[in-house]
């Protein structure tokens, strides 16, 4: 066991995979000498050399495009995009190419690449660094989308992502990069992609979140002080999401609140609610409530806290559903 926060869990996961498979390479801006702007690749270039932990030119489209080429020709690239705000340059590469390599080549070529990127607001970062775009990437068939919320899952999901035969976006919650410490195994383990995690059992209400919002939900539940019996689900994978766990819970509780920090319109809650409506409508005691950010560009630091879902808004959402 080793005590680790989320950033360190990324480093452990990368180190494990670099050591295991010589075809794994880590590439991105400032990931080598500097060890990444968040130090997620700290020390790895020293350990594995500049051919395997690679400082690239400043070009996100280049990083992802080249990773596709590396992946189709036998390598296992783990690309870092410095902030999720810079994922839209390579969006074309992800959508038009990475997601379709298997389909268009009828399985002759595959694209086992991982793109890691820190996302999420709440740390007073510069504008355009922190948006939550998980539903945009989940609207691309052929890409998997993973969002861990704690160190244990981070290492386990990262290992699973690197071994996955298809492209995976690995969204790291920047806000809680260093906020949570856990004992995590030094030996290899996996957290499967596509499996949600029931963090707390409950029978009155289902509360669903992912990434940095899981911690905010936990804080809300602490404040709620067992007033209701809440089942807390950490979705962990956005695409393909774990409908089975979600539906089983909602069928049991009949009430549901979904929290995400992406804006409301076309946020991933919409997809979850549609699936609840399709498969568990008659089990519902109340309309599902979404606690999300409003439909505006993420404001600069000064107004960030008005934008993001917080404990009070989550409690308000819970009360709304419970008192329906």
């Amino acid at each position, binding site marked *: 066991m080793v005590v680790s926060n989320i950033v360190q869990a990324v480093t452990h996961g990368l180190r494990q995979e670099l050591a295991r498979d010589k075809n794994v390479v880590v590439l991105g*801006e*400032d990931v*080598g*000498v*500097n*060890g990444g*702007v968040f130090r997620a690749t700290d020390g790895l270039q020293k350990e594995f050399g500049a051919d395997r932990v690679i*400082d690239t*030119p*400043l*070009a*996100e*489209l*280049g990083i992802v495009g080249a990773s596709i080429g590396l992946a189709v020709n036998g390598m296992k690239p783990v690309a870092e995009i410095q902030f999720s*705000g*810079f994922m839209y*340059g390579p969006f074309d590469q992800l959508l038009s190419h990475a997601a379709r390599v298997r389909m268009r080549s009828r399985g002759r070529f595959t694209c086992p690449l991982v793109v890691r990127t820190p996302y999420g607001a709440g740390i*007073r*970062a*510069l*504008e*355009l*660094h922190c948006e939550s775009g998980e539903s945009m990437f989940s609207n691309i068939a052929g890409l998997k989308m993973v969002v861990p919320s704690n160190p244990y899952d981070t290492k386990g999901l990262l290992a699973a992502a690197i071994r996955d035969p298809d492209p995976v976006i690995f969204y790291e919650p920047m806000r809680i990069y260093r906020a949570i410490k856990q004992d995590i195994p030094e030996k290899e383990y996996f957290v499967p992609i596509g499996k949600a995690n029931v963090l707390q059992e409950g029978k009155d209400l289902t509360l669903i979140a992912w990434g940095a919002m899981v911690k905010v939900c936990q804080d809300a539940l602490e404040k709620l002080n067992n007033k209701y019996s809440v089942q807390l689900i950490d979705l962990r994978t956005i695409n393909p999401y774990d409908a089975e766990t979600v539906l089983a819970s909602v069928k049991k509780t009949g009430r549901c609140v979904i929290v995400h920090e992406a804006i*409301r*319109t076309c946020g991933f809650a919409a997809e979850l609610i549609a699936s609840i409506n399709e498969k568990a409508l008659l089990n519902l005691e109340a309309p599902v409530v979404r606690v999300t950010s*409003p*439909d*505006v*560009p993420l*404001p*600069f*630091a*000064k*107004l*960030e806290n*008005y*934008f993001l879902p917080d404990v009070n808004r989550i409690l308000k959402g819970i009360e709304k559903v419970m008192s329906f």
Partner: protein
Amino acid sequence: MPKKVLKDFEIEYLQVLDENGNCDEKLMPKLSNEEIKKIYEMIILIRVFDQKAFNMQRQGRLGTYIQFKGQEASQVGSAMALKDDDFVFPMYRSSGLLIARKHPIVQVLQYWNGDERGLKSPDNVNNFPISIPVGTHMIHSAGAAWAAKLRGTKQISISYFGDGATSKGDFHEAMNFAGVFNVPAVFLCENNQFAISVHRKDQTKSETIAQKAIAYGFEGIQVDGMDVFAVYKATKDAVDKARAGKGPTLIECVTYRMADHSTSDDASRYRTKEEVQAWQKKDPVERLEKYMRKKNLLDDAYKEKILKQSKETIEKAVTQFEKLEAPDPKDMFNYVFAEMTPQQKEEMEELLGK
């Protein structure tokens, strides 16, 4: 059939004022004594600003800040060659440029403290909001220059970017559009040797950034970016050429980022003190002072006066900045569309009440 050489190229390097303040009078651009003093005063003002903003960040009085120390000559020298209604597309490291372009200092501070209101350009100058993504704004500059050409406004458009930005496809698309449509655009690269930790030599295999212009069919020039006269001259020439309908220019200002990349960075992880000290000798302020002393444009009294004045100006702005009222949370809804959507109205009410 013998092989033929179809094209061969040369890239000019321009320096007017050397590190010791010696000036090549033949190359010296036409500048009155008053103009030279104005340039000097602006350079001192922004240097004082830069240090103050950094200190404030360290004291928790400002958010993340990005210093431009070492790049004052590139920013002021080029700004002085522009007209107010020319279009400027700055980057995050352009705070000095913005001040030289009449952006109120209070607002520059406001921006770095996470307040959108800081971005609003004064009505009488065309300063576009700074680009936070690296390099995505150069093509806007090409577009704005194109509009100037189509509308016959006589404006030119200039974008500022770093050496790292030249690796992006955006750079090449901007240069190509500018060349193809022969627009009045100037591309000003502040090659400060680093893109965070990545050294210029690892960014591109080209020996110079200036030479990249050749491939797009227009001129590129490399200048000593710590020599304010060289930067002024190169920009003025490029601007005059653009206004005369003779197309774009790429200017590579060779300079150095004397500070960390940002207040979140620690440059000692990737560069040595010796390297920084070597560049320190090229400092844009010192050589200008030496030159001005020789020309009797500067003595100790004047130097002190300007420093004192600059500090007062900055302190006044800081006081004003610290008295500003916090932005109204409704503000985040107000500028998204000309008219708020029904969804936004509902969300605003839900979040902030009626």
